C-alpha cells in the first residue's frame, strides 16, 4: 500500500472568480485568430472525415 498525503490549501473563491472574470476579459480583447478547433465525442471523426 502507498500512503498518500494531500496538503489541502484553502483558496479564496471570490479571488478565483475575479481572476477568471479578468481572464475572460483578456481573452475577449485579444483577437480572434484564424479558425476554430473542432470538438466531437466521436473519436473517429475528430481529425478526418473522408466523405463529408
Amino acid at each position, binding site marked *: 500500500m*502507498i500512503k498518500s498525503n494531500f496538503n489541502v490549501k484553502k483558496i479564496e473563491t471570490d479571488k478565483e472568480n475575479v481572476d*477568471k472574470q*479578468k481572464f475572460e476579459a*483578456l481573452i*475577449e480583447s485579444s483577437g480572434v485568430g*484564424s479558425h476554430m478547433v473542432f470538438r466531437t465525442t466521436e473519436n473517429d471523426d475528430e481529425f478526418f472525415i473522408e466523405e463529408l
Partner: protein
Amino acid sequence: MSENISFDLDEKTYQKLLEKKENMGFKNKSWNEWFSNLIDEENSYSKILENIFEKKNYDVYFDDWIKNFKNNLLTIQNGHSAKKLIPEKEYPSGIIIGGGPSLKKHNHLKILANSNFEGAIICCDSVLSKALEEGVTPDKFKNFFVVVIDTQSHQKQWFEKDIVKKFGSKIKCIVSTTVHPSTYEAIIDSGMEVYWVHALFDYDKGKTSFNYISGIMSRSEKNQKGFPGIQTGGNVGTAAWTVSWNILKCPEVILIGIDQSYPIENQNGEIDFNSIGRAHPILYEYVEKIKSGKDNSESVKQAFPITFNPDFNCHYIQDPVFLYYSNALKEFIQKTQNKVKTINATEGGAIFGNGINSIKFNEYLKLKN
C-alpha cells in the same frame, strides 16, 4: 491556511493514476492541476479559453464562412477533391513549414533547401513565398503542397507574388471550401491546382450543422461522394499537420516554424521584439505590464504565460490565440502518437511534451541521409 489529509492507495491504483495523468498531457504538471481539470473541466482556464474562442469565431467569422462557401459552390462542385492527393505509395515523411520566428532564427529554409530530403513538403500559405525565395521549391522537392484555411480576403496576397506565380503550376494547393473567393482566384491565377477540403468545426451538431449541410451541397455529378473534412486546430499549421498524415499518408511528420508563441529571453519578460514579427498589440501591452511588475495577477499569467521549453532550452511567451492553438495541437499529437510520429524540429516555441519528439532540424536531416 492548509490542512493535511492522508489516505491509502494500493500500488495498482496509484500506477493507473500516474498513467492517466500522463496520458492526459499532465505528466509535468502538478497533481492539483490534473485533479482540477478532471473535476472542474468546464471551469478550467483552458476550457474557458476554448469556449470564448468558439463564441468569437461564430460572432466574427460564421456569416463570412457561409457567404464564401455560397460564392465558391460552383467551383467546388466542379473542382478536385483533396482525396485525389492520397498517394498510391505513401511518402516516407512530410515536413510542415510554418512561419514562426524560429524558422528565420535557425535558417531552417536554407538548411532544407540544401538537403536531400525526399518526402513531401507541406507549406503554410503565409510562408510560401519565403520558402521559394530560399530555394525550397517544387523543382527541388517534387511533392510540394500548400495549405490554405483562413477565410479573409487578404489571404490572396500570399498568391499574388511573382515568385509564387513562377512555381505555381508545380504546386498543389489544398484549400478550405470557406476561403474567400478572391483567395481562390489568386490561387488559380498563380497556376496552382486546387484540391478542396471542408474545415470541420460543427460536425458534432449532426444534420443541422453547417459542416453537414455544406458537405451535402458540395456533392455533384463529378464529386458524388463529396469532399473530406479536416481538423484545422484553428490554424493553418495544425491543418497542414492533419493533411500530412490523413491525406498525404505520411507516417512521420516534421515540424519547422511551428512556434505558436513568441521567443522571450527569460522569465522576467525580457523579449526580443525584433524576432517576433507581427503580434497582436495586446501582447506588447501585457509584456510591458509583466516586465514592470504592474500586473502579476493569475489571470495575466494564465492568458500570457511565459513557459520554459526543456527540449530546446528556451523560454517563450504566448498570447491567448497561440495558447488556444498550441493547447489543441499538443493534445492532438499526444492522442495520435500511435498513428503518426510527430517530430518537432522547430528548435523553439510551445510544441513539446508527451508524444512529441524534439530534435534539431539539421540533426534530423543528417539522420535521414
